[in-house]
């Protein structure tokens, strides 16, 4: 027995779902169903649709989402195709993820067509004002001819966007009206006669001037903005003229001889002298000199050089390796994860960081980009040697009684060797004419240790050495 199902033009998606659910529950095969679109405007269900509610039917959520779009396709076979696929899904629910299946590929293609049509409608509908601009609630209207039945599924977009005004989009198919906060659909409206709108002239001016005649890519334009939409868009009338004139305009630009600067240039540029920026810290002295360092290529990739900070008369100087990601961004030493560990251990042993001069052996962050991360790179001997200039200047300025060298790079910069660090740590090394150097581990070395036991031991060693440095300068 053949079932006839006639679906209304408004509310089609819900009507199809209701009908399909009933048919499926009754076990009626796709071959026995004839789907039709209502020719006559009224009637939610055709009379010969049996309204017997069936049992509960379970279908994959992804099917519902797809069906809710495919329903609005212009192809009259869409209802039957959906039901046919739904029928197959009963036995093979995994079909929804089988992108090689020909039926699914067809439905996905239709879905894509509807989405594209919806997208073009959101993009190319052009409103004209039909009320007075000073009305408390302004009023706009547009004429549009969508390829598929996309007015109903797209109406909510316009409602979310233009809720403080009245608007209507009239189409030869279904039209949508939004008045005083209420949305309604009506069928078969004639094309309205829309009044002139002054803002359109401004928009056309904008379109004309935002176009760059030196780069003509007509194909790229028409593939995204097919000609069939041009008649709704006031700016599109300009296109032939813009294209035709472009080569001559581009040539004229290229051939024009450079002109002399205008007379006002001198006066305008004299303003530059008054351009004080809050970014120019004007710290003066050594820190400012460090910040403008270009002694080695590292400065090109890093954000900024990070000078040491602390009281200029500090008894203890603490030297790390180089700024990390956070230090590079903030321009301050020891503020990233290693700096936080440093602060935590310092607090435990009662070492007051603000009383020490904290700096790095190398002042610029060395890294290699990996995706969205910057991977720290150990500075090489040449970079350490270049940067020793600044470290020595800081040492000369602070003249500390003791230097705590954290990690191999600091040890190398201060003692000439970064080798055998684990064996050397916890001891003070003396060199003629220089302050004594206490070697210890770098906090980031501890952060990198995977084994919890090793990490605890290394952390205890760092704490021991920091406590020792505190005592030695006390």
């Amino acid at each position: 027995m053949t079932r006839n199902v006639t679906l209304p033009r408004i509310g089609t998606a819900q009507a199809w779902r209701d009908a399909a659910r009933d048919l499926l529950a009754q076990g009626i095969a796709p071959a026995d169903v004839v789907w039709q679109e209502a020719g006559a405007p009224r009637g939610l269900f055709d009379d010969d649709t049996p309204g017997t509610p069936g049992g509960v039917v379970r279908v994959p959520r992804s099917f519902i989402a797809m069906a809710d779009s495919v329903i609005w396709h212009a192809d009259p076979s869409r209802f039957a195709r959906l039901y046919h696929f739904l029928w197959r899904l009963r036995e093979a629910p995994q079909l929804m993820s089988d992108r090689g299946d020909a039926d699914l590929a067809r439905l996905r293609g239709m879905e894509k067509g509807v989405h594209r049509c919806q997208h073009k409608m959101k993009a190319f509908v052009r409103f004209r004002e039909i009320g007075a601009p000073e009305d408390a609630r302004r009023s706009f209207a547009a004429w549009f001819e969508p390829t598929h039945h996309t007015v109903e599924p797209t109406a909510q977009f316009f409602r979310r966007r233009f809720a403080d005004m009245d608007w209507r989009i009239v189409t030869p198919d279904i039209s949508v009206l939004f008045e005083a906060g209420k949305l309604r659909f009506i069928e078969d409206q004639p094309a309205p006669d829309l009044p002139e709108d002054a803002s359109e002239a401004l928009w056309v001016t904008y379109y004309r001037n935002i176009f760059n005649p030196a780069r003509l890519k007509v194909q790229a334009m028409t593939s995204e903005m097919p000609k069939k939409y041009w008649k709704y868009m006031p700016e599109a009338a300009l296109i032939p003229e813009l294209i035709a004139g472009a080569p001559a305009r581009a040539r004229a630009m290229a051939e024009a001889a450079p002109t002399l600067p205008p007379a006002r240039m001198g006066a305008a540029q004299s303003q530059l002298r008054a351009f004080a920026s809050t970014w120019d810290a004007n710290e003066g002295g050594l820190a400012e000199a460090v910040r403008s360092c270009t002694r080695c290529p590292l400065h090109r990739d890093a954000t900024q050089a990070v000078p040491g900070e602390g009281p200029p008369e500090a008894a203890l100087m603490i030297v790390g390796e180089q700024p990390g990601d956070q230090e590079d961004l903030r321009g301050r030493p020891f503020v990233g994860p290693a700096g936080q560990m440093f602060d935590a251990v310092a607090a435990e042993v009662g070492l007051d960081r603000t009383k020490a001069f904290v700096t790095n052996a190398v002042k610029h962050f060395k890294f290699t980009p990996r995706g969205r991360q910057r991977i720290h790179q150990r500075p090489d001997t040449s970079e350490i040697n270049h940067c020793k200039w600044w470290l020595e200047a800081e040492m000369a300025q602070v003249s500390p009684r003791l230097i705590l060298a954290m990690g191999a790079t600091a040890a190398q910069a201060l003692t000439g060797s970064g080798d055998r660090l684990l064996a050397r740590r916890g001891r003070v090394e003396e060199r003629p004419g220089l302050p004594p150097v206490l070697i210890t581990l770098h906090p980031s070395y501890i952060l990198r240790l995977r084994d919890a036991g090793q990490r605890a031991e290394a952390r205890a060693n760092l704490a021991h050495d920091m406590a020792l440095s505190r005592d030695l300068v006390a």
Partner: protein
Amino acid sequence: MAQMSLDQKLAILSDAAKYDASCASSGSTRRDSRDGKGLGSNEGSGICHAYAPDGRCISLLKILMTNFCVYDCSYCINRVSSNVPRARFSVDEVVKLTIEFYRRNYIEGLFLSSGVIKSPDATMADMVRIARRLRHDENFRGYIHLKTIPDAAPELIAEAGLLADRLSINVELPTDRAVEHFAPEKKPEQIRKAMADVRLRKEAAGDRSHGGKRPPRFAPAGQSTQMIIGADGSNDATVLGQSTRLYSSYKLKRVYYSAFSPIPDSSAKLPLVRPPLQREHRLYQADWLLRFYGFELAEITSVTPDGNLDLQIDPKLAWALAHRGLFPLDVNTAPREMLLRVPGFGVKTVTRILATRRHRHLRYDDITRMGASMKTARAFVTAGGWTPGAMTDSTDLRARFAPRPEQLTLL
């Protein structure tokens, strides 16, 4: 001087803005005006409301607040030494244009940039005032992109980030040296510091406070930048190296490449030869491979000896042709990271292949239905009922893809 009409100002200040490539309006917070108390919405994906014959999308009202500028950047139409007509919008004019265009569904929002006048702070303060008027007085919920002035005070950037969806600062050129040469008043290290500041503010706004409250979102659509290609002698390896550093250092959403194009009244400092637009296109393709396809910079740029991308074929195909030993791949067994390297397969195609092959063996016809470009891909894969045979290693394989020489001539 006679008062300029709004139409005349718009003509000058949109003409002045066209060299900024960005027009994105996507990736911000979702919001709407269903409450009836405001205008506009933002739905995640952007909308291109029109296309100009230059192939560029028009999504935002892209204008300069003013094209008066005290800087003298040789590549810029608005440099102080140029003789272009000058104009300046009032705050009201920008607000009115944005709202009236938006109500007619012409645009997704505003992209506001400006020449620098009086001082960086004064210029930025005026731009922030426009954004504040739109957000607070007009209850505008559409998209706002502000081009920030690198030297502007941090508190102005802080407010700009709370009002705008996206902030951007142009690095202008691929190397510091080129910036110093072509844009003498701009300081590359200051531009980097400003980008670092935006990243830090954005991250701080993402952290919950101790009470679990989220602070207001800062520039929810992130920050971007633009580089002019072909004005200096940098090769593509240098350009892409700069991009990867910028992406990793400042978490940029996008780096835009803009092939240097002739401008009216151009400076004598600029090269006479313009780069082919194709170069810009290849850079975008390479940028995508680096960010979404797991390619390393050196893999892409080492294919050619001079560090420039092949203009005739896309960088993925160029890489595959140079590594034919890895192909053909069996679509039924190859891992995801290798499938992503097949020319003609996109991320979507690969996801579909992986989803489907869990259930069954894939045949050639199946792949054709998954969005792949088989004209390209077939030389590099095997599937049920298909093997490329000697095609993968054939000497004329490149010639099959490269366009014929006469098609190369660009305007």
